[in-house]
Structure formats: structure tokens, C-alpha cells
């Protein structure tokens, strides 16, 4: 009995495991683990597509929304959506804390940062065929992110910075050139080592890598004023292949999720698609009903359609029609304009039938019959870009490039987020418009 307490204490002490102080995190992989293995690198690359295309924070949502709001494509349904409302009002109302302004900036910079780490890791891999897939796939999102920044901001970070050495800035045109360089490097990697099937089985289906590399190169070359480059890249794109962001029930189409599904944010302006008198779509243009649905009973009458009509509808990365229009514009704008070919390409768009487009975007109109001058053709090309590429997020860039009057849009460029300005003294002054 006397020894009982001592035995008890000793037992108790012996039973208690001495508390450890180093625990392994079972919930997530560390940076070191992720960037040292092919599966880790692939996982991060896949996340780039997710960040770019899923949710209200994604560049897909915010480029379509910001461009559409600033260029009169949409009507706002509820000013309670204050961030969207600011863009619809435009001008100085768009403030530096606007969440769309901030998401566009932050998400695209994030993609560029993680893409650089994947590219560095891929270059160090032994399996060069797997590596070339990683490089090509990752480069698509890096280029899209640089392009999205160049579309909406006057100057963009020339590369990721650190807290001690903040990023320096480059002009948006240099940004487009940098995006083209990223795509060139990707094409070189693929040319040297074909993409392995093993890599392709680890990424989501939907994106056609070789065609997307060329299509984006064509787009950014045009924006950067390199018409020869735009023409050759656009010619290399197959017009019968789809390349698209796909969705599933757990990762919904972001425009459907926020806009179509709620009917509480915005809807298409109307059947003019927001174009001014003189440029408005032909009443017989089948692209208008393609892009807008009609609700005869409940306002508003014109509703989002096409690539945003169901929760899991895929959204094209680019449209084949964009390639044809790039060719038309490049012919029309090149140093020695080739108006004949420009008109021929434009006519392909005007006379296209649903069977002639993998996504079914088809005007089904007669060929162009107006005057064939550089100016008139460019105006017609602009009009057709606005219709063919409705809700693609490119209209703001088109308006500036085609020199449309500023009264047609709410801002030229977005202001820089305070988050950047407060922490990076290299941040340029906000554009006045």
C-alpha cells in the first residue's frame, strides 16, 4: 500500500510520451518537394490553368468582365456589385482598390511567378520529352498572363520582383514581345523534343498545345505590330481544331457561375452588342443569336448565351475566327497593304457557315461589298472582331488599336492597385483615362 503512490506516479510518467516538437505537415507539399519532382511540377502547371480559368478571381472572368464593361458590351443589372459597377461607370470612378483591378493584377502576376518556377524545374528534368510538354503547357499560361496584363495596364512588371528588389516595369508593347518570346521558347523546346504521351496524360484535356502556341503568337504579334509574324503564326493554326478551357461541376464556368446563373450582375447590352450606329451587326448576322439569348418575358430581354450558357460549358482559349481576322488585319496593315487578301480573309468570316467553324460561330452573311480601301476594310475588320469575338476580353485592345473615339469606352487602361504602389516604388503613375 505504501508503495502504491510511487508505482502510480512512475506508471503515469512512463505512459506519457514525451511531447515531440517537430511535426510533419500531412496536409500539403512544401515548395522544395513540389519543384523537385515531375509530378509536383505538373501539378503546379495544372494549377496555372485552374487559376487562369476558374472562379470570379480568374483572369478569364475578369478580362471578359472588365473589357465588356469598359467597352459597352454589357449592361449592369445591380449596382450592388460595386466593383463591376465602377467599371461600368469608368473614368476616375475605377479606384485602385477595385477587386477586378486587383484580381487581374494579382492572379496574372501569380501565374507568371509560378510558371517561372515550373519552367526552371522543367529545364532541370532528365526526361526531355516530358520536360518539353511541361515547358509548352506552362508557357501558354505565362503568355496568356503577360498578355492579359498588357491588355489592361499601360506598363507591366518586366518580371517577378522580390520584397527587397521590387519588380521594374516595361511598356505593354514590350510585354507582348516578351509573351511572344515565351511562346518561341516553348516552340523550340517542342521542336527539339516531342511532347511525351506521359505528360499529356497528366494534364486536363481540352487544350491543343501546338495550335494554341501559334494562335497566341499570332494574337500578340498583331498587338505588338509585327504583322509578318502575326500572319505566319496565324497561318500555322489549324482552323478545324478546338482548344478550350473545360469545366466540371466542382469547377464551374466562371461567367455562368457569376453572371448567367444569377442574372444579377450584367447581361449583353442588346442585339447591337454595344456597337455604335454604323457598325452595328447586320440584322441577319447569325452571330448575334449565337451570342445572345432572348428572354421574352422577364427583363432583361437579352441574355448571355454561347460559351457561358451552362455551368460546365467550355470557353475557347482562342477562336479560329480570330486567326482569320488576324490574317485579314495583318494583310491590311502590313507595310505594303495587301487589300485583296485582306478582303478574302474578311469574306471567309462573313460567309462562314456553322459547319465551317468547330465552335459554330458563323455569320452566314454575303461577302463584303463595300469600298476596298485600307480604311474601310479595317473598319469592317474591327466591326467583325467585335461581333465574332464578342465576350472574349479583347475588345478594349481592339478599340485602342483601331483608334476608336474615347467616348465609346470608359477607360483606356486600369489604374495600378494600391497593393503594388504601396510596396513597389517603381510603380508608374496611374493613367489619367
Amino acid at each position, binding site marked *: 500500500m505504501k508503495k502504491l503512490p510511487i508505482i502510480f506516479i512512475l506508471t503515469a510518467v512512463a505512459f506519457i510520451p514525451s511531447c515531440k516538437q517537430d511535426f510533419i505537415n500531412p496536409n500539403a507539399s*512544401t515548395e522544395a518537394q513540389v519543384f523537385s519532382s515531375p509530378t509536383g511540377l505538373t501539378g503546379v502547371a495544372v494549377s496555372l490553368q485552374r487559376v487562369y480559368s476558374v472562379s470570379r478571381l480568374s483572369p478569364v472572368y475578369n478580362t471578359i468582365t472588365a473589357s465588356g464593361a469598359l467597352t459597352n458590351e454589357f449592361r449592369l443589372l445591380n449596382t450592388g456589385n460595386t466593383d463591376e459597377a465602377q467599371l461600368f461607370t469608368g473614368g476616375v470612378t475605377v479606384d485602385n482598390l477595385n477587386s477586378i483591378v486587383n484580381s487581374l493584377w494579382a492572379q496574372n502576376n501569380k501565374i507568371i511567378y509560378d510558371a517561372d518556377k515550373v519552367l526552371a524545374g522543367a529545364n532541370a528534368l532528365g526526361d526531355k520529352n516530358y520536360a518539353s510538354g511541361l515547358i509548352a503547357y506552362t508557357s501558354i499560361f505565362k503568355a496568356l498572363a503577360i498578355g492579359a496584363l498588357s491588355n489592361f495596364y499601360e506598363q507591366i512588371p518586366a518580371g517577378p520582383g522580390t520584397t527587397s528588389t521590387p519588380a521594374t516595369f516595361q511598356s505593354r508593347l514590350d510585354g507582348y514581345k516578351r509573351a511572344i518570346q515565351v511562346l518561341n521558347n516553348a516552340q523550340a523546346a517542342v521542336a527539339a523534343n516531342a511532347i511525351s504521351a506521359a505528360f499529356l496524360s497528366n494534364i486536363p484535356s481540352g487544350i491543343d498545345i501546338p495550335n494554341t502556341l501559334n494562335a497566341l503568337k499570332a494574337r500578340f504579334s498583331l498587338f505588338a505590330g509585327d504583322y509578318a509574324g502575326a500572319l505566319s503564326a496565324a497561318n500555322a493554326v489549324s482552323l478545324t481544331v478546338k482548344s478550350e478551357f473545360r469545366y466540371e461541376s466542382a469547377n464551374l464556368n466562371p461567367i455562368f457561375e457569376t453572371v448567367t446563373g444569377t442574372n444579377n450582375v450584367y447581361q449583353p447590352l442588346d442585339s447591337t452588342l454595344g456597337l455604335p450606329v454604323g457598325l452595328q451587326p447586320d440584322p441577319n448576322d447569325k452571330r448575334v443569336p449565337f451570342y445572345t439569348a432572348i428572354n421574352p418575358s422577364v427583363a432583361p430581354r437579352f441574355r448571355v448565351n454561347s460559351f457561358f450558357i451552362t455551368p460546365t460549358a467550355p470557353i475557347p482559349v482562342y477562336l479560329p475566327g480570330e486567326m482569320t481576322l488576324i490574317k485579314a488585319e495583318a494583310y491590311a496593315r502590313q507595310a505594303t497593304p495587301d487589300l485583296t487578301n485582306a478582303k478574302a480573309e474578311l469574306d471567309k468570316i462573313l460567309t462562314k457557315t456553322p459547319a465551317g467553324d468547330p465552335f459554330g460561330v458563323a455569320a452566314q452573311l454575303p461577302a463584303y461589298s463595300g469600298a476596298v480601301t485600307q480604311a474601310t476594310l479595317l473598319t469592317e475588320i474591327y466591326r467583325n472582331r467585335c461581333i465574332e469575338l464578342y465576350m472574349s476580353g479583347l475588345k478594349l485592345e481592339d478599340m485602342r488599336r483601331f483608334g476608336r473615339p474615347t467616348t465609346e469606352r470608359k477607360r483606356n487602361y486600369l489604374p495600378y492597385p494600391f497593393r503594388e504602389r504601396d510596396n513597389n516604388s517603381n510603380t508608374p503613375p496611374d493613367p489619367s483615362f
Partner: protein
Amino acid sequence: MKKTKPIPKLNMKTFFLFASLLLPAVSLLAQVSISGKVTDSKNNPLSGATILIKNSAIGTSSASDGTFVLTTNLKIGQHAILFSSVGYKTQEETITVSGSKAFTFNINLSEDISGLDEVVVTGTSLGTTRKQLGNYVTTVKGSSLANAATSNAIAALQGKIAGAQIIQNSGDPAGGMTVRLRGISTIGSSSEPLYIVDGVIINNSNARVTNTTDTYDAAGAVGQNRMIDINPNDIDRIEVLNGAAASAIYGSRANAGVVQIFTKRGSSGAPQVSFSTSIKSNSLRKRLVFNRAPTKFGGSPDVQTQDILTPALTNTTPVTRYDYQDDIFRTGIGTDNNVSVTGGREKFKYYASANFGYNEGIVKNTDNRRYGFRLNFDQSLNNWLTINGGINYVYNATNEKPDGNSFYSPLNVMTILGNFHDIRTRDANGNIKAVGERGRINPLSVIEDLKQKQSTSRTISNLGLKMNVTKGLNIDYMIGIDNTAQNGTTYYPPYTYNANTAFFGGGIGLDPTLNGYASSANYTGMFFNHDLNITYSTQLSNLLASTTQLGYSEQYEKTQYSLIHSRGLAPFVQTAVAGSTILPPSDVRAEQSIRGAFLQQNFKFNNQFFVTLAGRLDGSSVFAKENRNQFYPKVSASYVISDAKFFSESGIAKKVNNLKFRAAYGESGNLTGIGAYDRFNTYLSSSYLGRTSLGSFSTRANDNIVPERQKEFEIGTDLSMFNNRLLFTLNVYNKKVEDLIVPNLTIAPSTGFTSERKNVGTLTNKGFEILLTGVPVKNKNFSWDVTLNYNRNKNRIESVSAPLIQFTSITGASFGLIPGLDAPVFYTTYFARNDKGDYLLNAAGFPQTERGNAITNLPLRDANGQPSGAVLRKATGSPNPDYTATLTNSFNYKKFNLRVQLDRVKGNEVFNADFRTRQGVGNGSEFAEKEHMGLLPRGYISNIYAIEEWRVEDGSFTKLREVSLSYNFGKLNHAFSDLTLSFAGRNLVSWDDYRGYDPETNASGQSTLLRGIDFGNVPIPKTFQLGVTAKF
């Protein structure tokens, strides 16, 4: 992983073997019997008084009639016997043992109004008198919780603790509570105090087993916190330490203060049965007035529900206006039943209790039920060793509705509707119908069909040993485990009408893959702690005594949270696997440990002057090895000047009974300031299109992070005068938190991250607490006690590395940390004003948002005197009050007691999101009604809707917090040894100018930073309670 030994670890096995050699030789003993009766100054028997042989573990406690018998073996020689009871002065008697003998004592304990002789356990293992403390400790007796008309122990403490702001964040029957002791002590982690029940560090988590949808309610710490599992009826007393200066013994876990709860223990003698029962009614304290205008703008409600914010609509349509409050609220009934038995013999004592509580919420179909069992025992093994233990099992189940911060909360679905829809009409099949054209949820769907339930099974167990090894040397050891298993389910049945897919509806086409939502979530938490304390007390000279204490403690926590959920439900099936669309599941696990050792030395000079020095070494696993172990010093002193000879001989002593001065300085660290693995940069895996996506976080982690260090200096005085008829306590403190961890320090997004978790800056809380108790009238039949508790705290960000750090919440509330201002402030857009402070109107005659230079943040005016430039933001308020105060009046007339408690909170602001929503959707009576009636120009609300300052308003209030009237029959026939009847009310009246239900609310729950948000939260009910307490 390699094991480190950062702290010199006590080898306990060796220690105990060594200690056993020191055991006293068991010889020269005589059996003595000590018996008698303990009474108070009015000769009423005192039950539960402690009778203890000094410097030993031998003791007993008095039975309900005050009698006690203690039979034990004592060494030949002199022994002191201590008679004590909470709230009474301890009395000491001496016996001389020469052989077997019986002693009888009839002890009359006088009430210790000044509390100086009250024994306080918190901060020491053996207890010390309040006299010796260098810092203030509040003690609340369990009996004062009984008439608070709430079954939540923390709610019952409202207004009863110096330096505390206790907020009920939600009026749900199991709604969350926040306790802030001397302001917030951190930014990014919990600032709730450490809760200890009978030595066990208990879990007070807010596990999100319900409210699991991630679309709308991700911010904050909403829902129940686990302190609701503690039954107030089991509580003997609660001690509250406010800060670092006091908390060396609990180390760094006590950074935000300590609330130590002691449950009732057994007493020897005939078993005594106590029974109490009460019935409650809960109802809505204040009804809001909604829009009564006879028309709406635009067309029929069925095609155009949103009218106010579309100023282009100027035509009007006659409508019927509804008040949906009757569809949401009801009067809820509650009951609380407790039965307990105490008893034992001199070597074994027990307390056993069972309780059942049921409480209906004021929102229809919500309730909470709690079943609890407790067994406490004390066993003396011999005259130098006792064992004590306890086990508490609780089952707590709730039928709830989504909390605020979610668009499905019963209040939000009401707030967001224009009140011109008849929500009660049904279709031909009896189904609830759609509301308007926008896919809004019909409130009746939430009330009738939406099921949200959770339940918790929990066991708190403790076992302790107390050894009086030899005279002056005491060792005590305790081990405790708190094991919690909590699970929650939600079920939103597929809607039969067009409900927005963002609200888990199926949209216009009732898409079956999206319509409806179900979830099942589980949380398990195991909290383990054990503590060893060795105390050596000795009299160094006639005047100087010393107490040395060496302690070691370890704490370990293991938690796991898992969630499965899906949408697009099969008809009738309610489980989370019924959905055709499986949403991303969660499985989050964490382990962490803290260990620390301390050495504390106390000197007592002439029982008048006391000095304590302590040092503590603590290490937490959440920090990197290099930063893990930190040293925290503490020093305190107190001087009871009234016991000094010059004082007691002076004339003042006739008026001043007691006067004490004290000072304390202490440091502590926030060892749980970051999550278990927050110092690592990680990539989170999720399923995406059938592949694995590894996503990077937006916040950059930082391995160099160190624990926040708190330095607190406190001085105070305790004064009692006029025969203890007037008591005054003043505490003045300066609490400084250095190396403040900011979880989202903004960094340039071009770095790849938008924020960083980093040690930057300093936070202070400076203030004072006054406790004034007076007894204006006291005679044989009548007494009147008044207590004023006034707490003023100025919370301030002294520095952070940026001019502004912003935090946003889903409610649209934007918080900022700005040097020189409160942590946090509401940082919002604001109205442009002219020199006179009136609204500067725009050309159309509407108030407008202030604009100016975005860099300097100063307003600019254009040529017409109108605001120009970028939209500006500024601090427009803070959820921190200037002061809190409580005035309690207690009247005793014969056997009647009337107690009235008024609580005041002054100078805080609330972000009233609901107010603005009501105006925007057109159901508000404050502005929307006026715009509909033409009393405000059309477009007024739409023009100012985006100005965030409109939502910030004064949250000051004075509440009639508690009223109770009780009658004590005393001993009644032979049936009852004691019988009390009581009638009590809680939160009956609030005097405030608030444009909502109640400014005391927080939709972000127990969040440290996101506070003062009114967004769809259930208001705190007014409660009436009728109760009977009987002893047999």
C-alpha cells in the same frame, strides 16, 4: 526527424525516486478526531467550508448543516488547523497532539468583503491569499451565475469581470461568445483567454462542422465555441487573470489572460442532494419596422424585384408590403435541470451531478440540448498524499440555421427581399414558390426545409496528486485530457423553384446536378496537458518567509477536420454522398506541442510586503527550431500598508480597514500565434478536371517568424474603508505586444504573392479598471450593495511596417491597421463634406463619395467645388469601445434578494451591412420607404449606396443585462434543507440608437480582428427565467 532537446528536461522518474527517499518516517503518530461546526457571522451553517491541517494534505469540508468530522493520524506536536470558505476570512486554530484525543471547534467565519484573505489558486499551485498578489485576479462565485438566466457560463460572466469585454456574438441558443481581457493581444490568431477547468487546458475551438459552403461564409470564426459545453451549475468558482504580469505559471498560453474554472467538490458527511430546475422563455427583444410604402418602382414584383437601385425606373406599381419577421421568429421555451449529490467520508469525498438543458432559439426550428455528467472525487491515501480526479461527459446537440455571414441565414434571406412578395403562397403541389425573378431564396425554405445540425461528444478528465513530502515541501502533479468529437450535417433539399445556383439552387432550369446541397463534417480534438509543480516554503527568520516553486508543463494538441459535401441532390436523400456533384472535400490535420519550465521565488516580509520573481522558458512546435525557445521574466510586489505598525496606530486606521499597493511586470509570448504548419510555404492539392492541381497560396509564409512578445506593467491599489462598507480597487496597466505577427502584410503582387505573414510592429493596450463596491445600507433586515465595474482600454497600433494594412470580410466591411489608431479601424470610403461638416451635394443634389489625391489621401475640389480625383478611404470607426461599465445594485430584505445589473458599452462602431441592404433592396423603413413615398428624391439611395461610411454607425448601448428576484425559504419542514425560488430576466432592455436589432453582435463570430459586423446574425433574445433550487 531528429529530436531536439532545447530545454533541459526534468527527468521525472529520477526525481520521484529521489523524492521518495525524503518521505518522512512514519512514527510517533496519534489518532485524533476533530469535529465541530462552521457558521457565518449570522450563525447560519456554512456548507463546503474547508478544514485543513496546515502543511499537509489532510482535510475535509463541512456538510450542509456546517458540521464536520475529521479523524486522522497526526504526529505528536503542534498543528495548525485552517478553516476557510470562499468569500470568508480564513481562520487558524492550533491543537497540541500528545496522544489520541478528540477536539471540538465551533468556528464562526467572518465575511471577507475586502477579499484580501481570499485564497486564489490561479498563478500558484497551492494557492495564495489575495493579499500577496502583485496583480489583480477576479473571483466569481458559482452561485452568482445561477440567476443570470442563461445556460452559457461565459454569458453569465458578462459584466462581472474587471477588465473584460464579454460579447455575445450571436443570439442562437448555442451562439458564440467572445472574451477580451484588456483588449486584443494579437492580430492574426485567437485572442480568447486560456480556459482551464480543474487544471485541464480545454478546447475552445470554433470548428466549422456546419456553415461548410465555401462560396459565401469563409471569413471569421462563426458558430459555436466549445465553452458552451461547460455547465454553469457545476462551477464552484471562476478566477480570471487579465494578463502577462499574472500569468507566469501558465506561461505563454496565457498571453490573452486565463479563465480558470473550479468545479464543485465533495464534502464529507451525510450525502446531500441538490436539485434545481428552471424554465425560460426567449423572444425577440426588438422588432424592426420595415417599409410601409404602398408602391414600388417599376413593374410587377414578379418580374422586377430590384427597384430602388435602378433609378431609371420611375413608374410605380401598387404593392402589398409584408413584415416577414413573423415567418422567421418565435418565442422559444427552454429548461435547465440539474441534480447533484455530494458526500463522502473523511478520506473519500465525491461530487456527482447530472444535468439536462433544452433551449429553443428565437428563430423557428432552432434549439440546443445539452446532457452532462460529472464526477469529482478526492481520496486521501495517507496523511501526506491525496489523489483527486474528475470526469465530465457532455453531449451537446443543436438544430441550427446557417449563421450570419452566409446568404442563407434566416435573417439574410429576409433582409435581401423587397418586402412586397407574398412568400406564403404555395403552388398546386403545396411547394414553396419562387420569390421574384432573380432566383432568391424564399425565407420559408430556410425555416422549413433547410436542416443544419451538429452535435458534440466530449469528455474532460483529470487526475492529480498532491504530496506533502515533508514540512514545507509540496509536490503536485496533474494530468488532463479534453477529448472532443464534433460532427455537423447540412441539408438544403433541391429547391422546387428557380433558386440561384450561387445559393445552391438549380437556376432557372432547376439543373439537377446543382440543385440542393448536403454536407457532413467531423472535427476531433485531443488536448493533453500535464503539469508538475514542486513548492518549498520556509520561514527564513521571524519576519521573512520564502516560497520557491519549480514547475514543468507539457501540452499537446491533435486535431483533425474532415468534410465531404456535394450538390445536385437525389430526391429525399440527405447525406453528403447523395449529390451528383461532389464538391472539393477537406481533410486537415494538425499536431502541436508546447513545453515549458519555470522557477518562481516569493519572499514575504512581516506578512506585509511581498515580492515575487519568476522566469519561464517556453517552446512551441509551431515555430522554427531557432526561434522556438523563449525566456519570459516576471516580477511583482505588493505592500499591505494598512498592516504596518505606523498605519494601524494612526488615526486613519479607524476609517481605513485595508490599504494595499501592488505592482507587477511580466512578459509572455503568443505560442499559438500561428497555425501548426503556417511557417512553411506549401502547395495545396486539389482535384481539377480529373487531374491533380497543386496551387500556391496567396500569402507567403516565413520561417523566421518569432512568437509575439507581450510586456505588461500593472500597478494597482485595494482600499477598504468604513468597516468594509466601501471597497475600491484600481488597476492601471500598459500592455505592449511586440513582434506583432501580421498575417497578411501586403506585398507587391508582382512578387508572386499578395501578402506575407511577418513579425512587424507593436500593439498597445493601455487602460485602467475601477471596481467600487459600497454598502450604503446594512441592518438586520435590509442591505443594499452597489458595485460599479468600469474598464477603460485604449487599444492602439503603435507601428506596423506599412502605413496601412487592410483586411476585408465578405460583408464588404473593410478593416485597416493604421499606426496611431485602434486595431482595427473600419477603413472605408466616406461622404464628401463641406467646411461645416454637412454633406457636399453633387449637381443633382445628392450626397457623394469623397475624392482626392490617392497618394496623399487628401480631398481635392474642382473648379465648381466638387470632389475630384480618386475615391478616398479613411478610418470611420472602430469596433473597440472607449469603455465598458457595469452597475449592479443588490437589495436584500429578509429572505428576498433583488439584483439589477446594467451593462454599458460606449464608443464602439458597428459595420451595419444589413441596414444598407434593407435600403438597397427596398424593404428598409429608414430610407427606402422615404424614397418610395417621395420624401427623398428618386435615386438618393442608389447615389450613396457605395459609400461605405453609410454602414458605419455608433454601437454604444446600455443594457438591462440581468434582473433577478429570489426568495430563500431556508430550511423548510423536513422535506427541504434549503429552498430558493427565483425569477430572472436577461437582456430585457437596450438603450441605444442603433439602426438594427442589436449593436452587440458579430457576424464574423469569435474572430480577433473582424469584429462589429452586423450581417444576418440572429439578435440576442430577451430571456425570462423562473427557477427553483432545492437541497435535501
